C-alpha cells in the first residue's frame, strides 16, 4: 500500500499543531510537505514580523488567512538614540488597513518602533470588535485623540500599553472616553504620557474594573492620589507610581503605607519620579514579595537604595541609576540571590568626570554574588580587562551582556590596553551569549575573539571600535547565528561587506552609520543581492552627486521578500538595479 503523506484527518493534525506555538517550530512543520503547509497556514493564529519591511501585508494575508495576534517591529534599534532621521519610515497604517478587512477577529496588536497615527488608532477602534490587547512600544505619531478613539470603541480591551511611546499629549480627558459599561481592563501602562490625567475618570475606571492587575501611572499622578487608587485595586500585581513626592506628613505616610500593604500580590514596582526618600519606607511591607523593581527614574542616593534592596530577597529584576554605586551593588549581591537581570543607567551621562562612585567593582560584585544573573546593561566610566575576565569567570551564564563605558575609545584604566582580551573572555566563557554590546578601546583582535567564540550571538552592537575591515570580516564570517548587527563610527568599509555579502541574507538586518562604506559598494550589493534591501540614508542629498567611492552617511541593509519599499522619504534610496520594475 503506498505510503500516504497525510494519514490523519486534517482536524487531528490541526489539533496536534495547536500544541506547537513557537514561530520556528511552526515554520518547521510547514516545510514538511504541502498538505502540512496548507493545514498549518490555516490554523496559525500568532504572527511575529521582526522587520515590517521584510514582507508585505498582502503576502501575510495571502498565506495566513486567519490571524488573531500580530507583532510588528519597524525602525532599527539605533532609532532609540536619534540615529535614524525623522521620517525614515515604519508606518503601520498600511498593515492595519489591510488587516481591517482580512482579519476582523484580530485580538492583539503589538507594535515596536513604528509610526502610528491617530487615523490608525481610529481604524483599529472601528475595525476590530474583539480587540483585547494593544501594545505600542517606543512608537510615535499619535496623540491622546487617537487614544480616546480606542477607549471609546474597544469594548473588549484588556490591555493598553503605551510603553515609552512618544505621544502628543493634547489633554488628559481621553480616559473619560472609556464608557461606564466598560469593565474589562486588566493592564494599563500610561507612564509615558506627559500631561495631567483626569483623576476622577481614572479612579472611576479603576473602581469598575475588577480584573485590573497592572497599572502604570504617569508622573502627573500625585502621591496623595495613589492610596485611593490602591484601595480600589488591591489585587494589583504590577504598579507604576506617579510622582513619588509630597511634603512630609505622617498621616499621608500612614495612609499610603496601609494602602500599599493592602496590595498583597504586588510583584513589580516602577515609576518613582521625584522621590522624597522619607516616603520610601511606605513600600517596605511588600518588598519581600517583589520580583521586579524599576528605580531608573528615582534620584535617590546609595544609602536609601541599599536599605531598599536589602529588603527584597526575591528580587529578580532591578533597573536603577548609578546612584546605587559600588557599595549599593555589594549590598545587592549580598541580599538578592535570585537576581536575573540588572540595568544600571547613568545619572549624568554627559559629564566626563564621574559624579558617583560606580566602577567596575560593582559589576564584579553582582557577577560573583548573584548566581542566576544572566542579563546585564551597565553604564560606567572605568573598566579593566582584569575585571572583565573576572566577571566572565564568575558568571558564564550571561545571555545578554551590554557594557557601555561612557567615554568612547578609552582603554583599560590600569594597563592602558584595549579591551580585546576582556571581551574575549566574555565571549569565550559565556557560551550562551545571545546579545552583546561592546565599548571602550577595541582593536580588530576583539572582533576576532567575538567571531571565534560568539557562536550563539544573535545581536551585536558596536561603536567607535576596530581598526579596519578585518574587524567586520571577523564578525560576519565567524558569528554563525548573527541576526542583527548595528555599527556606528567604526572604520569598516567595503571589503568586509562585499566579501561576506551572502551572510547578509541570513541576517535580519545590518545598520552602519558614520563608517566607511562607499556608495559604489552599496550599489553593488543592491544589484547583486535581490533579496536584500540596501538603503542608503544620506541627508546631504542624492549620493549620485558625490564620487562613487565617497562613504555614505548611513546604511541599513535588511533581507526582504517584499522588494524595495515605496514609502521612503527624500533622503533614503534603495540600491536596486530595477526597482522601478519590481512588483510587490
Amino acid at each position, binding site marked *: 500500500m503506498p505510503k500516504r503523506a497525510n494519514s490523519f484527518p486534517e482536524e487531528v493534525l490541526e489539533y496536534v499543531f495547536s500544541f506547537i506555538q513557537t514561530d520556528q517550530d511552526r515554520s518547521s512543520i510547514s516545510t514538511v510537505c504541502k498538505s502540512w503547509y496548507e493545514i498549518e497556514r490555516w490554523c496559525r493564529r500568532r504572527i511575529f514580523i521582526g522587520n515590517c519591511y521584510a514582507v508585505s501585508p498582502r503576502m501575510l494575508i495571502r498565506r495566513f488567512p486567519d490571524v488573531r495576534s500580530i507583532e510588528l517591529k519597524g525602525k532599527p534599534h539605533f532609532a532609540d538614540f536619534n540615529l535614524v532621521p525623522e521620517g525614515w519610515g515604519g508606518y503601520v497604517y498600511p498593515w492595519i488597513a489591510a488587516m481591517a478587512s482580512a482579519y476582523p477577529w484580530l485580538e492583539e496588536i503589538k507594535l515596536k518602533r513604528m509610526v502610528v497615527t491617530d487615523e490608525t488608532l481610529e481604524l483599529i477602534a472601528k475595525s476590530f470588535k474583539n480587540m483585547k490587547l494593544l501594545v505600542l512600544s517606543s512608537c510615535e505619531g499619535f496623540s491622546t485623540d487617537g487614544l480616546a478613539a480606542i477607549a471609546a470603541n474597544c469594548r473588549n480591551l484588556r490591555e493598553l500599553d503605551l510603553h515609552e511611546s512618544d505621544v502628543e499629549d493634547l489633554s488628559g480627558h481621553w480616559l473619560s472616553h472609556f464608557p461606564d459599561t466598560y469593565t474589562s481592563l486588566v493592564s494599563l501602562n500610561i507612564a509615558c504620557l506627559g500631561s495631567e490625567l483626569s483623576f476622577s475618570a481614572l479612579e472611576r475606571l479603576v473602581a469598575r474594573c475588577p480584573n485590573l492587575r497592572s497599572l502604570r501611572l504617569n508622573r502627573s499622578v500625585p502621591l496623595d492620589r495613589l492610596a485611593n487608587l490602591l484601595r480600589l485595586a488591591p489585587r494589583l500585581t504590577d504598579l507604576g507610581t506617579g510622582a513619588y513626592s509630597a511634603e512630609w506628613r505622617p498621616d499621608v505616610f500612614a495612609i499610603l503605607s496601609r494602602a500599599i500593604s493592602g496590595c498583597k500580590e504586588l510583584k513589580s514596582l516602577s515609576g518613582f519620579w521625584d522621590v522624597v526618600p522619607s516616603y520610601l519606607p511606605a513600600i517596605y511591607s511588600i518588598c519581600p514579595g517583589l520580583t521586579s523593581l524599576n528605580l531608573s527614574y528615582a534620584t535617590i542616593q546609595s544609602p536609601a537604595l541599599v536599605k531598599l534592596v536589602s529588603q527584597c530577597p526575591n528580587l529578580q529584576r532591578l533597573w536603577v541609576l548609578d546612584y546605587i554605586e559600588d557599595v549599593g551593588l555589594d549590598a545587592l549581591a549580598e541580599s538578592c540571590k535570585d537576581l536575573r537581570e540588572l540595568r544600571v543607567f547613568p545619572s549624568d551621562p554627559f559629564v566626563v568626570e564621574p559624579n558617583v562612585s560606580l566602577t567596575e567593582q560593582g559589576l564584579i560584585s553582582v557577577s560573583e554574588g548573584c548566581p542566576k544573573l544572566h542579563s546585564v546593561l551597565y553604564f560606567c566610566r572605568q573598566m579593566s580587562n582584569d575585571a572583565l575576565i573576572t566577571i566572565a569567570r564568575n558568571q558564564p551564564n550571561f545571555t545578554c551582556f551590554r557594557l*557601555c563605558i561612557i567615554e568612547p575609545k578609552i582603554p583599560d584604566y590600569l594597563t592602558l590596553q584595549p579591551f580585546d582580551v576582556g571581551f574575549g573572555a566574555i565571549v569565550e566563557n559565556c557560551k550562551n551569549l545571545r546579545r552583546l554590546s561592546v565599548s571602550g578601546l577595541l582593536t580588530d583582535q576583539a572582533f576576532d575573539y567575538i567571531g571565534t567564540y560568539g557562536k550563539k550571538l544573535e545581536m551585536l552592537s558596536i561603536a567607535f571600535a576596530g581598526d579596519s575591515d578585518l574587524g567586520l570580516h571577523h564578525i560576519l564570517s565567524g558569528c554563525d547565528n548573527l541576526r542583527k548587527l548595528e555599527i556606528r563610527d567604526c572604520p569598516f568599509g567595503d571589503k568586509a561587506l562585499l566579501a561576506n555579502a551572502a551572510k547578509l541574507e541570513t541576517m535580519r538586518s545590518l545598520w552602519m552609520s558614520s563608517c566607511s562604506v562607499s556608495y559604489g559598494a552599496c550599489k553593488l550589493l543592491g544589484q547583486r543581492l535581490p533579496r536584500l534591501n540596501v538603503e542608503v540614508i544620506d541627508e*546631504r542629498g542624492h549620493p549620485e552627486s558625490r564620487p562613487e567611492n565617497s562613504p555614505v552617511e548611513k546604511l541599513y541593509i535588511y533581507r526582504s521578500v517584499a522588494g524595495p519599499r515605496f514609502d521612503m522619504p527624500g533622503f533614503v534610496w534603495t540600491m536596486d538595479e530595477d526597482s522601478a520594475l519590481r512588483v510587490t
Partner: protein
Amino acid sequence: MTSMLGVERDLNLRETELCLGLPGGGTTTVAEPETAKTTGKRGFSETVDLKLNLQSKEDLNDNVKNIASKDKNNLLSCTKDPSKPPAKAQVVGWPPVRSYRKNIMSQKNTSEEKTEKASGGGGGSAAFVKVCMDGAPYLRKVDLKMYKSYQELSNALSKMFSSFTTGYYGTQGMIDFMNESKLMDLLNSSEYVPTYEDKDGDWMLVGDVPWGMFVDSCKRLRIMKGSEAIGLAPKAMEKCKGRS
C-alpha cells in the same frame, strides 16, 4: 596600522564577482582622505589614527573630543581644537541613553538631588525639540541644552540645514528689536529665520527672550523664510516692549 594591502591578504578575498571594481582602477582604497575632505566626512585613515575629528553632518558641535587625561595619553592622540572652549563635545546618540530617559531626568525635582558638579555646560539634562525647515525633506531633533547661546544654536542649525545661514544676533545675544529697520530688512528678505513655538502655543521669532528662558519655553523650532515670518515680528516686538 594595517595597510589596505595587508587587509587584503588577511581577508583572503575570493575572486568573486563581488570584488569592488571602481571605474578607472583596481581594488584600491575606497575612502581616500582627499575624498573625505571634499565631502567633509572623516576619511578612513583619519579614523584609524584615532583623531576624533568627527565631521559628520549630525555632529551638532564641531568639537574635537579631549579624551586624554594625565594618565592616558600613550595610546591616544589628543587633538584639542584651540578655537573651541574645553567643554565636552557631545556626539549624537552617545552615550546610548534614550532621549525619553534623558528628557525625564531633566525634569527632575531639584529638592532632593545631589548638587550637580559644575561641569561646564549643564550636563545631565536634555531638552529635545523637533526642528523643521520649510522646503527641507527631513525633520531633526536638537537638544537645546547642548548650546549656551543663540549664536551656538544658529551655528548648529546652519550645519544641519544647508540653506540656513547663520543668524543675526546682537551683542547681547538676542535680536535687537529696538532696531526695527534692521529687523524689517531681514524679514523682508528671502533669508531663512528660525521661529519657535513656546509653552503657550504661540509662534515667536527665535531670539526674543534671554537664552535660558528660551530653552525652558521652546517646544519646537521651525525655520522659515523671512518674508513668512513677518507676521510674527509685531507680536515679538510687543512682547519685548512689554517686558522692557
